[in-house]
């Protein structure tokens, strides 16, 4: 197996807070890799660094042998790294279908957009196909802002998929979602993975992670603590310690 995406000793501080501390991670081509860790351990920040939303202080990110460490979000996406957000982000005042069309051409020059219509026949077909895949095709002409929480999650997944990225980073895809939908999402991920898509998934739902992932990396205080197969992780005492040690977010710790 070859490594598709690798993170090498990334550090990132926000003021005095060391959100990432020499964090390393690798994602094999064709795998479903899990990324778990207590709240505030830096998982979302790591996603932001990989996808170009945050510039790291040190370390490097490599995707398909290209250095993408300080590359901006649109370029990273163009190269083939798609992501969803922990707090779902969609374009609420345009239709569901238009949301899909924003993403259909991940690497088109900006000038081209002036001289062509919103979508070609094939883009439209692809958009509808992916909406159908996640099961919200009947909402295509609705304004996206009218979707329910779960439908938004599905839409976000669908418009990342329509651009056909090589690896997809999902930030808590099962967060706040009911059990039926969780299983549905897990099925979608599995079938996409069979078709060759690579996933890196942050998720708190342990059952979801353990059933789905080939390998899991545990983060703790901005560092990768351990990596291994789900059963190795389950039986590693350090993992239990990290979780029992409470949340890495001080305020959350106080609250609990």
């Amino acid at each position: 197996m070859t490594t598709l995406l690798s993170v090498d000793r990334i550090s990132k501080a926000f003021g005095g807070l060391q959100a990432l501390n020499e964090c390393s991670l690798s994602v094999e081509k064709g795998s479903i890799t899990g990324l778990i860790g207590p709240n505030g351990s830096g998982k979302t920040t790591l996603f932001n660094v990989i996808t170009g939303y945050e510039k790291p202080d040190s370390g490097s990110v490599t995707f398909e042998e290209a250095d993408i460490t300080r590359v901006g979000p649109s370029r990273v996406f163009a190269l083939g790294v798609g992501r969803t957000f922990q707090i779902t982000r969609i374009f609420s005042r345009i239709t569901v279908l238009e949301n899909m069309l924003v993403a259909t051409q991940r690497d088109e020059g900006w000038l081209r957009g002036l001289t062509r219509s919103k979508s070609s026949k094939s883009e439209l077909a692809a958009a509808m196909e992916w909406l159908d895949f996640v099961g919200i095709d009947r909402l295509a002409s609705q304004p996206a802002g009218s979707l329910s929480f779960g439908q938004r999650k599905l839409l976000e997944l669908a418009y990342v998929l329509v651009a056909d990225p090589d690896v997809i980073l999902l930030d808590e895809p099962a967060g706040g979602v009911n059990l039926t939908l969780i299983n549905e999402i897990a099925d979608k991920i599995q079938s996409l993975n069979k078709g060759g898509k690579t996933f890196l998934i942050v998720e708190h739902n342990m059952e979801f992670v353990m059933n789905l992932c080939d390998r899991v990396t545990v983060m703790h205080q901005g560092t990768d603590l351990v990596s291994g197969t789900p059963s190795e992780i389950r039986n590693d005492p350090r993992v239990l310690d990290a979780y029992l040690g409470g949340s890495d977010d001080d305020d959350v710790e106080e609250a609990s």
Partner: protein
Amino acid sequence: MLRVRNVWWIGALAALVLFPLIETNPTYTSIGIFTLIFMGCATSWNMFSGYSGYINLGSAVSYGVGAYTLTLLADHLHVPGNGDLFWLIPVGGFAAMIVAVPVGLVALRVRRHTFVVITIAIFFVFQLSATNFSFTGGTSGLQLPLIPWLETNYNKPFYYAALAITVFAALLSFAVRRSRFGLQLLAIRDDEDRAAGLGVKVFAVKLTGFTMSAFAVGMGGALYAVFLGQIYPQFVFDPIFDISIALMSIFGGLGTLTGPLLGALVLESMQQYLTIRFSNGSLYLIIFGALFLIVVLFMPQGIVVYLSDWRSRRSARRAEGARVVVGEAS
């Protein structure tokens, strides 16, 4: 093939074309000219600010640059006082686009309120420069060559030039709305960072939209200069212009195609009419303000959106009613 919507457009265009042929009183055709200039400028402004959500309160920069470019070029090239002056109007538009590039490079680095404040600041830089540089004539302004046309027909060419600018701006706005580029502007309005993460080259798209929208506004300013025959910094670099354009678009419906056209048609013609009718310069401000408040309070998305929502609510109610009847029958 003729849809109801298209019939409306054709009817409106026909009315605008026929207006100066039926109404020959220069007082009223002048109102028509000013109204059309504002319709074109507001439509063009909305094509960027309405679609992208970047509220530019410095659009008078484009207006003033268009006006000064035409006036200075006419002087420089010794263009005589006749229809030849009209050929310089698009040149004014291009000059406004060229100026919009560095302005956009600075202002578009920031978002929301900061963007609005920066555009205002840049506007004042231009206004101050126009007042203080000597090549602009300073506060005493600049004169254009006199056009010796007969009074009865004097307004017609200006009217049709203004109509051409408005039609151009509307067609461009329509084309942009249907293009991929327009979709990208809307995506930027809703969530710029998310759009970037889906491959949209956000800065290039914003700068292109900002620059394009300067063109028709610059032409509007250039036409205004020819029509008045003289320009002063405080009239072409006018903060009221900045605000009016934005208010007209919001009044009609920000980000819609018809909103700015309708908003400018209603507000500008009303303002001009009231000013002339009551020869009281500030009366219109009160009515203008009251009307604006009513719209913003009761139709926050503007008249056009309000009306289309109302229509779809009504047809939904009808469908509902039909279902009830069917339900009773079964």
